């Protein structure tokens, strides 16, 4: 990272010193994510919702389901779009106004992970081919920022989607008409889990908190599906990874993804 303030430089050298001894600034192991707590049904009027607390990072995700036009080249599939926003109250550096590039990247990485995994069977969401399909919109709101918003947003969105219901529409005179009280479960094919890792010097750390996040050399977010395959990946930061480090990251993302998937499964089980 460039333009580190003097405090950040001191922090970085402290964090690196600890890593040399195999320790982290918050006493976690290098490959240990922060505790994850998922609450579902936190927004009763949404079609699905969840709150994810990853350590002191908190995200609320709400699902809105509504008829929409399909993408021009995918008339036989419903649509899925994911957004992200950081509330000003989430962190002193967060401000109101149009989304900054870092927030746009969060939405894209979360969107790509869920989309590429094929989590939602969008082929079941067509009302009339090429004309009208069902759209699933996942809106993520960061209410507390302590680093690694990628994973917190992803876990909240995935949990919210699992608990969501799809209302029933029927086409009448070329227009979708809502049929009351006929909602069904969202067709879920797999549970994508993102795991974000950072590199500092030669060390790879899982789920960096904000102190760590601000002095990473490079970061990588790898999303895996329920079969343990990699479905999406995004590298960030100005420095790079070696091949060996990337292979290690891919193995970590599968092992940790499995544990996180179990937590999300358990948290969403009762709410279906």
């Amino acid at each position: 990272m460039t333009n580190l303030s003097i405090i950040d430089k001191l922090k970085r050298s402290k964090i690196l010193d600890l890593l040399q001894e195999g320790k982290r600034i918050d006493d976690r192991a290098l490959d240990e994510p922060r505790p994850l707590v998922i609450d579902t049904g936190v927004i009763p009027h949404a079609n699905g919702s969840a709150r994810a607390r990853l350590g002191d990072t908190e995200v609320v995700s709400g699902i809105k389901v509504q008829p929409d036009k399909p993408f021009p080249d995918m008339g036989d599939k419903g649509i899925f779009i994911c957004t992200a926003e950081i509330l000003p109250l989430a962190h002193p550096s967060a401000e109101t106004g149009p989304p900054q590039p870092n927030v746009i990247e969060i939405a894209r990485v979360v969107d790509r992970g869920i989309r590429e995994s094929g989590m939602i069977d969008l082929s079941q969401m067509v009302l009339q081919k090429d004309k009208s399909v069902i759209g699933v919109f996942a809106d993520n709101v960061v209410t507390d920022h302590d680093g690694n918003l990628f994973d917190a947003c992803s876990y909240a969105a995935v949990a919210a989607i699992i608990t969501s219901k799809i209302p029933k529409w029927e086409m009448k005179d070329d227009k979708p008409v809502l049929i009351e009280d006929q909602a069904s479960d969202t067709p879920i094919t797999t549970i994508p889990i993102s795991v974000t890792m950072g590199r500092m010097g030669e060390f790879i750390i899982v789920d960096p908190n904000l102190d760590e996040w601000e002095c990473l050399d490079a970061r990588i977010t790898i999303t895996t599906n329920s079969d343990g395959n990699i479905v999406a990946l995004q590298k960030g930061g100005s420095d790079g990874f070696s091949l060996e480090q990337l292979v290690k990251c891919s193995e970590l993302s599968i092992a940790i993804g499995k544990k996180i998937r179990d937590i999300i499964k358990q948290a969403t089980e009762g709410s279906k």
Partner: protein
Amino acid sequence: MRDMVCSCAAGKAADALILDVNNEEDQAGQADMPIGYMPNFGKITLLQLDGVLTTDEFKKCIELGLEGCKQVYEIQKNALREKYFSSGDNN
């Protein structure tokens, strides 16, 4: 100047790992992974993946992509050499 960045994409189409994914292969294929690489440092500076790969395929896919990057690096170097060193008068 410490290094040059070279890049190449690798991916998967029709269950085969492929180098330099073209548009048809990207549209119809199973995975697409652009890679940016700095050969002197041995560092991967850009990496993005859309599509499904097993861990083993992922590793092979990066290795394949890096081979492509190294080929591109040689072409880049030769182009610069030809431009600035072949005629001997530095233009």
